[in-house]
């Protein structure tokens, strides 16, 4: 057996899923090697994903039946441009979070539980992005939720346990709702395979009920307004690397499933009213999230509410893509949003984590002149802020530009008002913090030193958000490979 068979295009997806899983198992068995195993996994998975991206660019969609069982029985994995982009995003953020956590936890006893949980979460995400059947998607969703909740519970702050408990309940209800939809679809179609379900064609009576159940569950897990209530406390009170992973990756997991279902099974059944309903919720999310971010007393709360608002932006993908003339542009814009938000938000959470690490709190009113103490982190915060606001050059700007194009070519000017208004609100909450952080004080700002790796991982992610503003044609080419939309 040569290397090409062993690591060939057809086995790559299986490797990408199993590598973090094995590492997680090792981390449980031998707590001492949790950290090196995670760092190794981060590098190895990245290499595999790059290779997979190359294959998908060359050959289009890749499908794989694990163990050789045919669809409906075995585990079907498939990779197209969409999955590859989500996997790359996971590698980038996951790699940075891993390196950051290596500095953050140090010899802390929480590290023993952190590493295996984090690797489980990573494995669940990889599997989620590669699954081609709706039941496997359920399994990955559940694994993702459980590992995320456990990671939140690792925090020592007093607010963390109730936040984690609430998160757990929401997560379980969401998955359950999704699972009922799966059951309905299986009963009607006799298969769990996404492609087979899509090919089975339109008009089975139970399908709208299935859609309603699955969409409700996924919207809840993605924290779209008004189902966002659980997100700010959970994200703001988790340990810094966990906050970053939750906001950047975990909410995108459930969103990805909704997007997949929308693009395959449900496309013929979706009427504009459904899309507009989601649009209205997205609008409320943008406005409400931004206002709460403006009012927040703690920096991590501000950032978490910013996630609520940005999730609203991401969900605008559905109303904007519902007009045929702008479908392509809207999907491209939405996916660009997902990617650049992941980089920017992870950078911001890591930078905010550095503040907490250094001075022990994140009360905004007491952070005057923090840029003098943590210049690299605050520079990272500023760069990521540019992308969050959507100013050029940044991934956020490209996404916003595509959204505006989609809205204006189809005459949906009201979304334009929302997109720009949300941008102004995000400027307000970002600069609200800057005007304290970058003020000059002659008092020395105390605090313990922050390991360099924690400052620079935040910076690198922020740079990625900016660089995404200059690489749009290449990235778009990648996520349209295999024509997922």
């Amino acid at each position, binding site marked *: 057996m040569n290397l090409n068979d062993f690591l060939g295009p057809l086995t790559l997806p299986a490797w990408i899923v199993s590598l973090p899983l094995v590492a997680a198992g090792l981390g449980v068995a031998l707590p001492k090697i949790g950290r090196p195993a995670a760092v190794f996994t981060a590098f190895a998975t990245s290499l595999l994903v790059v290779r997979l991206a190359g294959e998908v660019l060359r050959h289009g969609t890749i499908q794989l039946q694990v163990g050789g069982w045919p669809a409906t029985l075995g585990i079907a994995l498939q990779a197209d441009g969409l999955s590859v982009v989500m996997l790359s995003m996971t590698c980038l953020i996951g790699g940075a979070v891993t390196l950051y956590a290596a500095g953050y936890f140090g010899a802390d006893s929480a590290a023993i539980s952190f590493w295996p949980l984090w690797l489980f979460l990573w494995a669940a995400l990889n599997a989620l992005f590669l699954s081609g059947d709706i039941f496997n998607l359920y399994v990955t969703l559940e694994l993702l939720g459980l590992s995320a909740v456990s990671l939140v519970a690792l925090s020592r702050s007093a607010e963390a346990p109730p936040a984690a408990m609430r998160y757990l309940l929401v997560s379980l209800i969401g998955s359950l709702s999704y699972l009922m939809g799966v059951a309905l679809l299986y009963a009607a179609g006799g298969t769990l395979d996404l492609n087979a379900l899509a090919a089975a064609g339109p008009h089975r009576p139970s399908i709208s009920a299935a859609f309603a159940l699955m969409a409700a569950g996924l919207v809840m897990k993605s924290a779209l307004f008004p189902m966002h209530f659980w997100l700010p406390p959970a994200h703001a009170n988790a340990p810094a690397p966990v906050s970053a992973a939750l906001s950047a990756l975990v909410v995108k997991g459930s969103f990805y499933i909704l997007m997949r279902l929308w693009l395959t099974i449900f496309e013929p059944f979706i009427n504009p009213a459904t899309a507009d309903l989601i649009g209205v919720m997205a609008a409320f999310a943008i406005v409400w999230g931004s206002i709460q971010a403006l009012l927040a007393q703690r920096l991590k709360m501000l950032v978490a509410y910013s996630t609520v608002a940005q999730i609203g932006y991401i969900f605008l993908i559905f109303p904007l893509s519902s007009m045929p003339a702008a479908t392509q542009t809207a999907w*491209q814009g939405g996916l660009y949003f997902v990617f650049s938000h992941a980089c920017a938000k992870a950078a911001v959470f890591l930078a905010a984590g550095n503040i907490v690490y250094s001075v022990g709190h994140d009360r905004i009113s007491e952070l005057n*002149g923090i840029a003098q103490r943590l*210049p690299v982190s605050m*520079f990272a915060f500023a760069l990521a802020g*540019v992308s969050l*606001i959507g*100013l*050029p*050059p940044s991934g956020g*700007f*490209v996404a916003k*530009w*595509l959204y*505006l*194009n989609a809205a*204006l*070519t189809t005459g949906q000017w009201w979304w*334009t008002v929302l997109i*720009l208004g949300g*941008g*102004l609100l995000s*400027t307000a909450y970002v*600069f609200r913090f800057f*005007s304290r952080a*970058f*003020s*000059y*004080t*002659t008092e020395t700002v105390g605090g313990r030193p922050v390991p360099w790796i924690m400052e620079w991982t935040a910076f690198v992610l922020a740079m990625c958000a900016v660089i995404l*503003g*200059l*690489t*749009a*044609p290449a990235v*778009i080419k990648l996520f349209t490979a295999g024509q997922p939309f």
Partner: protein
Amino acid sequence: MFFDDWLPLMILLTSLLPGIVIFVLPEDRIRLRTGLNMGGATLKLVLIGVMLWGVRHGHVYETRLSILPNMDLILNADAMSAMMTALSGILWFLTTLYAIAYLETSPQSRSRFFGFFSLCVSSTIGIALAGNLITFLMFYEMLTLTTYPLVVHRGTPDSMRAGRIYIAYTIGGGAAFLVAVAWLKALVGSVAFTEGGMLAPFVDTYATQLRFIFMLMIAGLGVKAALVPLHGWLPNAMVAPAPVSALLHAVAVVKAGAFGIVRVVYDVFGIEFSAELGLLQPLAVVAAFTIVYGSVRALFQDELKKRLAFSTVSQVSYIVLGASILGPVATIGGIVHLVHQGLMKITLFFCAGNFAETLGVHHVSQMNGVGRRMPWSMAAFTLGALGMIGVPPLAGFISKWYLATGGLAAGQPWVIVILVASSLLNAAYFLPVIYRGWFQDAAESWPDKPAAGMPETHWMLLIPPLITALLALLAGVLADAPFSPLEWARLIAAREYQP
């Protein structure tokens, strides 16, 4: 040709790359930082010289980068961008020199300052070289972001407040401009700058939409150009260090707005088409009102930099006024003022900075006797001020002359009334300053005089205003010489009015 394809990008990179390196330099690497700054500035000047020569000889310089979805980033050198680039290049060189001396003792991070300073100039160059609206927009927003840290450099509550006001105005303006560009793209598909305009063919289909787009664009650009009532941020931004104010008022922010308006009127809509849509008259009214309003407000400011700020509000609108009168003569007047106002205003700000830095003089009422103590700075200030008033043969006179005759040629004699009124007001707020400086006795105890044979202040603070004052004088005296701003403005006007 390879060189022709990349020259615009190289001009941009001569400040962008040093800027990025400067950020990571430790504070105490003063020599290296200065070397990078001045080396980049010098190289940029050389490359701009090559470009000017080439543009006159029919070379086409264009860099196209495919970094945006469905749209290229275009940097190219037409006559108009060559002029703005040259202005930015020269004034950046001098301002950098000035800033190095000015901020030597500043307690705040100088690496951060000069890093953003370089990025700010790169944005200005990008604006000057932009070949389509989206490129322009990208650099226009970058300019907002890179000037904010300069405005709030001192980090005092005052400057943080000014920064918040600045951001509120400019981000709002940027959003209006963004939606206008996206709308135009959705309507006509192309957003490239074209000499003579490119929208005339769409008059039947989209006249109403195009009017709205024009208004949105002017509103978005008018914020930076400080058109009344969008000027509120400018007098507040005075808390910035002197070299920053100098740059903001002469080439960077305010000029970017005015330049953008010129671009939109001439190279997007086309001056004749703008007139056909009935858009020029309202613009002219706004410009005229701003000219008078700014001058009146300047009259009542005792703080020297505030007086200069309101003077900028007024003077920049000459450019807008020139762009809103149909006819090549007025066009020349407006476009040449892009350069002239830059030279004169930067001189005034350099000098105001010198008075403040050397003598602690911040207010007009403290100016008594400054001329005897600092004759060179005061002489430069006098030249700049007289130029602003429009005294021949200084640069300002040329601008006003062309604007006035252009107004007459277009059958709009009211322009002359505005110009006369404004010149009288200019005289009313500048002459007292000059009078106090030269003819009144010093009332206060200033720091000791420098020893005989020593310059009145640090030589790096003195050379830049002397050079810019000289340039303002030469731009007037040698207005007919080749490569003079006036000659270049004529070249641009000739191209804009080609059938």
